[in-house]
């Protein structure tokens, strides 16, 4: 897909307006805004990926596992020039590439098609293994999961395996808006820590804290950042 009217040079302050262009998925609104800062800081300061290098083999990968409520994600991708803001108004329409769950085949810059929970972390593990096998060891893999999404057993398989083999280029960010019905004893980070991950828990609205947590060294271990945001009401 090629676009002629892509703009860049958007900032964080443009995101609320970009998000407001998308309507029709209000039930996922809280899920969307919970990820806004977490995704922005990654794309703005951490990930080595750009619209020009969208297919570059050695790019960093960001996998949005929590595929519901993707408005913040789409807004950030538009702000970073992956597609024009004019697409946003079509959100969910028959002839729009932007669905209420993202499809990697339709949207430039979207690394996985998601929506069904519990697929992103296993796919991220495979991606990290694949990049290593291809000798692209500089590329980082990031996956965003929700705190309730961690209930899915497939995530536990991925957490246990990645920790056991020390998959260093794998990074997870858990957006914790307290939406799991039966939370984790000892907190979310404890689950990862017990499996051998490096962990950090921060305020998911604090850009500096997120950046620090994202870039913390974690030799020989996968890394998780638990980003706490206001509870879903």
């Amino acid at each position, binding site marked *: 897909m090629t676009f002629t009217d892509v703009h860049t040079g958007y900032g964080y302050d443009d995101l609320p307006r970009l998000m407001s262009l998308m309507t029709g998925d209000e039930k996922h609104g809280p899920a969307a805004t919970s990820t806004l800062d977490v995704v922005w800081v990654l794309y703005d300061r951490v990930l080595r990926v750009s619209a020009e290098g969208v297919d570059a083999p050695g790019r960093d990968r960001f996998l949005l596992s929590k595929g519901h409520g993707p408005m913040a994600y789409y807004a950030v991708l538009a702000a970073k020039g992956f597609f024009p803001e004019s697409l946003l108004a079509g959100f969910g329409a028959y002839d729009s590439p932007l669905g209420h769950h993202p499809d*990697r085949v339709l949207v430039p810059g979207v690394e996985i098609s998601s929506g*069904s929970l519990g697929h992103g972390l*296993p*796919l991220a593990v495979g991606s990290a*293994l*694949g990049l290593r096998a291809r000798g692209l060891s500089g590329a980082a893999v990031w996956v965003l999961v929700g705190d309730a999404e961690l209930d899915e057993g497939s995530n536990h*398989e991925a957490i*246990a395996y990645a920790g*056991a083999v020390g998959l260093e280029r794998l990074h997870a960010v858990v957006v914790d808006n307290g939406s799991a019905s039966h939370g984790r004893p000892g907190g979310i980070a404890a689950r990862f820590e017990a499996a051998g991950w490096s962990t950090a828990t921060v305020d998911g609205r604090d850009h500096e804290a997120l950046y620090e947590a994202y870039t913390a060294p974690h030799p020989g271990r996968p890394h998780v950042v638990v980003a706490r945001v206001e509870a879903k009401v």
Partner: protein
Amino acid sequence: MDTMRERFASVVSRLLDDDPRLAVVLAEIGKDGFTDAARAHPDRVVNVGIREQLLIGVGGGLALTGMRPILHTFASFLVERPFEQVKLDFGHQGVGGVLVSAAGSYDWPAGGYTHMAPGDVALLDTLDGWTVHVPGHPDEAETLLRDAAAAGDDSVYVRLSAHSNSAPRDIAPGGFLTVREGRRGVVIAVGPMLDGVLTAVEGLDVTVLYATTVRPFDERAVRATAGAAAGGVDVVLVEPYLEGTSTAAVNDALADRPHRVLGLGIPRRELRRYGTIDEHLAGQGLDPVGLRERISAFLR
């Protein structure tokens, strides 16, 4: 003679040496066959432990980075348990891979129903674009595995079995082989069912087609054979998995011609018997005696 699974390990281990794009993903089952390959290619032989959802997800992730993953475990745990992963982590991502199963429908009757997956091919039939190979001999398994590994980014399922025909046939991936010709009908024998079918139809005036690739279904071969028959044609399918799995494929192939179809295979009801493969086949009516009775009763 080695088994199909042993051949899988030796052939794919060699393919790993030659093709840097290939990776093998295992969930404990079958890991012994890849001990040397894992030493030689530690980044491309991955054992995720007893985690079958992760097995499929890791395969999809490898494919997303440009690798060609080959995933192996028993059919129950490869296709049935993580079926939504198969659907979403390959097809919906727009990537492909090779699934190689063992145990199938009746390889370990003494193990019981937990280790049987007669519905695997029917399940894959609900998805778009999967090639399905069902070899009937270790040599054929080698041919089909090599073809699957080299099939670009296609999604391919290779169903290995402990049940084998006594001799390999000169198969070509994708096409049915005409083993014998007759006028009273067509019997399509899939993979390891061929020997039993040939014994069953001894003296009957029927054509026998041998199918080792069942998806896509070789409609051309079925139509060509049916075309030689006067009036309507009778077709019997003998499949080593859920009975009727390919009945619709035969109907589609002959949609514009008068025909009758009988689908034989593993019934839905649980047999709840242990024993051996031969005893199990007899119990399911798939031994030569049972097949002859049912085929003769169907033909006009």
